[in-house]
């Protein structure tokens, strides 16, 4: 998977609601800043649960061009979508790992300039 180049990529946020594997403070900060940014985005409770249930909504979330996904390890996200019969496109999809990366890094990749502006406005 290669990262999307356009700034207008769709954003998908996974809350990993059924396990405590993503640091709580990272999730909270990413969700807070996304909410404050004014950007439209899709949020799901738990991609694992949707994959296990073969939720048809994954088709909707996987299709439609460039996408940035804030979730966990890219390999896990890629095969979760595949397992649900909704494979992600090989190009134009960037998975950001909230399990390992800092909220700041994830937000920078999601929002770019907007992330800087939101932080500046707060300070």
């Amino acid at each position, binding site marked *: 998977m290669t990262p999307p180049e356009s700034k207008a990529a769709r954003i998908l946020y996974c809350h990993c609601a059924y396990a405590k*594997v993503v640091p709580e403070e990272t999730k909270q900060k990413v969700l807070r800043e996304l909410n404050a940014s*004014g950007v439209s985005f899709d949020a799901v*409770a738990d991609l694992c649960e949707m994959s296990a249930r073969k939720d048809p909504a994954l088709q909707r979330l996987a299709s439609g061009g460039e996408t940035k996904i804030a979730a966990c390890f890219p390999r896990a*996200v890629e*095969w979760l979508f595949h*397992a649900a019969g909704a494979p992600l496109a090989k190009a134009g999809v960037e998975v950001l790992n909230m399990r390992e990366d800092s909220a700041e890094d994830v937000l920078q990749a999601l929002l770019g300039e907007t992330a800087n502006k939101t932080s500046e406005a707060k300070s």
Partner: protein
Amino acid sequence: MTKRLDAKRLRIVLYEGEGSTAIEDEQRLSTMTALLEDGHQVTRSGSNGTVATADTSDHLFLGQFDELPTASKAVEGGEIRFADIAGKDSAAIQELVRSQVQEANAEQPGEWKPWFPVIDYSRCTNCMQCLSFCLFGVYGVDDASQIAVDNEDNCKTNCPACSRVCPEAAILFPKYKSGPINGDVVREEDLQRESMKVDISALLGGDIYSALRTRSKDARERFSTERDESKALLERKRCLKKLQKDLDIPDEVLMTLPSAGDIEERARRAREKAEKRKARSRTMQDQKKVTTEEDWGI
């Protein structure tokens, strides 16, 4: 069977467009967090950016509407509902959504911890070790005789044992604590560690099940000669403890181990099934044989 979605789910949209008052940052965040914790899918329609396109799902628009619109049908066929959240806190909004879900006969999510294996097919060599190893019938084969996860629900929560025996580290449990099982990049040392684990089971006597059988037989023999029940039990416990430690198997899974006979029978049935499918696909390929110029008499 897998808990596939039978009932529809509502897509919830936090609406702040025309005909509504913008939601305060704090209220939007607490509402979204509460709904996500409840297992819902939520779309935030902001002033810029795009979201996933509408499909046939039913939609529930939550907003501070100047005038509450009436429910209608979307172009794609799903129903569109509206609910006013003005003056409501996140708990009240959670309740409101629950009642809307009920009213729409939609699925109430969040009743199952999603613990199941996910196969990384870029690494999987179709060796079927996982199928033979899994005690609970999670794995099967698809029409192309490829290993597949058939029964996610049968998987025992927090048991990653099948991924431990996978020689290619191709089985993921995204909610596992450590890599590469959690989906982290597979490193050379991980592969060595995984193969060491297989070797450990081989050292125990061919495979862990035969090891269990042998040890249990030895224990029985010892019991019959020595009449020492506690010694035999101790031996079994020692063997199970080693297995548990090597493969990170939770206690409750060990408590439900099927008999060796059951395991062999299941592996035999799976092999038979795979062979039948292979034979069927061979027959279908023969039937689909492309007509050659010779067949046409050219």
